[in-house]
């Protein structure tokens, strides 16, 4: 009989190995699902994981696109991971992402048609502030009135979506757009464009910021007192209090940072790849980033890798749809399996499996 025995401390080896194991298990279970749909599992897995990187026909275009897709995921997930480590659960990054894009775009469009080189930096600041301010709502409600930040931040996503729809059809609507919803095309205006910095690499300011965020988070968590406090508050809240950690300050800091980073992700997206404020501007990066944060073990380097992996499955998933006509929901189920298996195999890093030789009583 199998028995689980709690480890005194999580196994280091398994903590590193479980994400790889989860990917392998996802490939097996996903392959079975594709087979059940009548598609070749080997070919499907190859198209999803291999073709975007190495297929001669697609790779030169798909590789940079992985960075474009991973950039916002990593940027948001880094912010979320700080809070998650401290036990502050910001589930509303999607809303903060929208508000960052809205605030930044509104700043830029208010100054249209100025060509000042200060406009883009101003939009970046406005974007960060927009996301930060939206995250401050759950932060203040939690510190003042002890409301649950999970609920408040999540529900504010829906409020942000309504504001987005309203802005796209009203306040920020392109006056030359024949009454159709959607703002001016920001990535076509030199003053507001977030361009590809090096041709054919997919690198834009958002990707650069994501890499900087990874490094900053790494330094913060490993070298800085605040990082220590964040970790302590998550692992031993009582001990943290004795150590002089101010829980309210930590909540405001964690929510504020994750909100600002999500806002930045939104701003870089709206001025770059997306190009305009439209009704359906948000496509779920804020929610997917939660998966990325956990897939990456809340560790900055892990998140970097997880973001790239997630982006790969998106792009490969589209290719699989196109080449094999695998339905989109099957691709989503495949991505869902990844998180499911990761959480499931987590048990191995926290528990030891013992085979009970004494027999069942």
């Amino acid at each position: 009989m199998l028995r689980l025995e709690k480890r005194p401390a999580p196994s280091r080896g398994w903590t590193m190995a479980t994400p790889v194991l989860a990917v392998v298990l996802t490939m097996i279970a996903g392959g079975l699902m594709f087979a059940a749909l009548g598609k070749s599992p080997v070919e499907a897995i190859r198209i999803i994981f291999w073709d975007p990187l190495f297929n001669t026909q697609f790779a030169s275009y798909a590789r940079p696109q992985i960075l474009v897709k991973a950039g916002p995921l990593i940027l948001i997930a880094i912010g979320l991971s700080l809070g998650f480590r401290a036990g502050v659960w910001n589930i509303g990054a999607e809303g903060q992402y929208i508000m960052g894009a809205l605030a930044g775009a509104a700043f830029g469009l208010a100054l249209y048609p100025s060509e000042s080189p200060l406009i883009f930096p101003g939009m970046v600041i406005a974007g960060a502030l927009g996301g930060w301010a939206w995250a401050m709502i759950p932060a203040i409600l939690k510190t003042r009135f002890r409301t649950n930040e999970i609920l408040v931040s999540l529900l504010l996503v829906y409020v942000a979506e309504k504001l987005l729809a309203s802005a796209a059809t009203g306040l920020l609507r392109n006056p030359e757009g024949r009454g159709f919803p959607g703002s001016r095309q920001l990535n076509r205006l030199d003053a507001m464009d977030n361009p590809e910095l090096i041709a054919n690499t997919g690198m834009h300011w958002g990707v650069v910021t994501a890499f900087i965020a990874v490094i900053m988070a790494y330094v913060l968590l490993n070298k800085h007192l605040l990082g220590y406090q964040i970790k302590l508050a998550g692992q031993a809240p009582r001990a943290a209090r004795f150590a002089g950690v101010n829980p309210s300050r930590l909540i405001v800091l964690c929510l504020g940072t994750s909100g600002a980073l999500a806002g930045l992700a939104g701003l870089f997206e709206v001025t770059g790849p997306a190009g305009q404020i439209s009704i359906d501007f948000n496509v779920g990066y804020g929610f997917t980033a939660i998966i990325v944060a956990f897939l990456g073990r809340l560790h900055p380097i892990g998140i970097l890798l997880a973001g790239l992996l997630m982006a790969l499955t998106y792009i490969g998933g589209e290719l699989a749809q196109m080449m094999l006509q695998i339905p989109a929901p099957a691709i989503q189920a495949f991505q869902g399996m990844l998180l499911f298996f990761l959480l499931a195999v987590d048990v191995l890093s926290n528990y030891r499996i013992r085979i009970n030789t004494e027999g069942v009583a």
Partner: protein
Amino acid sequence: MKPFTKLVTASAMALGLAAPAIAQDDPLQVSFVYVGSVGDLGWTYEHDRARLALEEHFGDAVETTYVENVPEGADAERVLTQMALSGADLIFTTSFGYMDPTNAVAERFPNVMFEHATGYRRDHPNVSTYSARFYEGRAVMGHIAGQMTESNIVGYIGSYPIPEVIRGINSAYLHAREVNPDIEFRIVWAYTWFDPAVEADAAQALIDQGADVIMQHTDSTAPMTVMEEAGAIGFGQASDMYQFAPEPRVSSIIDDWAPYYIARTQAVMDGTWESTDTWDGIGPGMVGIGEMTDAIPEEIRASAQDMVDAIASGEYHPFTGPINRQDGSEWLAEGEVAEDGTLLGMDFYVEGLTGDVPN
């Protein structure tokens, strides 16, 4: 990568792109990008039915592929690029929000033909636009609704306050008022094209306000379920929604894209394809009127059919003056017919409608 190798790769890519158009023996590859799921039983469902009709019509001469649930914006641009790279000869982009991605990708792939639904931008010679005159169908539904209501209140679920939707509201209202001067329209904006929960709430809100006939410009069948429970009636939108007949679905406006898709594919095969702007209605068959059920009294069915025939033959235009704007100013004089330009940018209600167009 060195600039030189990059140049070589780029030209190799360009040659690779040109190849499918030259190789006539291969089946023509026609690709579709969908904003929703092929199982939405509405907008995307109808585009996919047309894709299947295309396959059936041409047999082995065409090969079709599609990607569903593609968000508008950056993702659409990537999917379109990958389609072009995979050798598509003709690509249908079936949502308004694909307008910019379509034109951006078309610029990079001059040998691939693009067809963008419901948009107005044709920046490059390899982009066409097409849409349907849904307002013609709305006129017929309004004609039926005005006579079927007992409370004289017609509910209308709007998606977004854009010209297409406003045009539909105006067309439905004008023809409901024509047969019932006491008619009142209540409009709820759902701010979504497809969200069963929101649409059901909107339908319930309209029923609570006394509406017994509901028109929807959103794509799910959720309002039908609510109408069924409340004993109200309504009309299928985008697809027939015949599973709700004979009541609550008493008729429907059907988007039939198959004839257009077949014609455009044929044009690519014949080498006669060129950039065009198509806006077809009931006449050419792009807008279909679903079977009117027995729930509608016979004489109303007959007069509605007369209207369908008159519109189809071009004898009657649903926007024929005298029509005033909501503020009472004159829009169309007696006998004057609306110009397409005004209709395409319609941002005002006609006289008699209450409330404001949002923003």
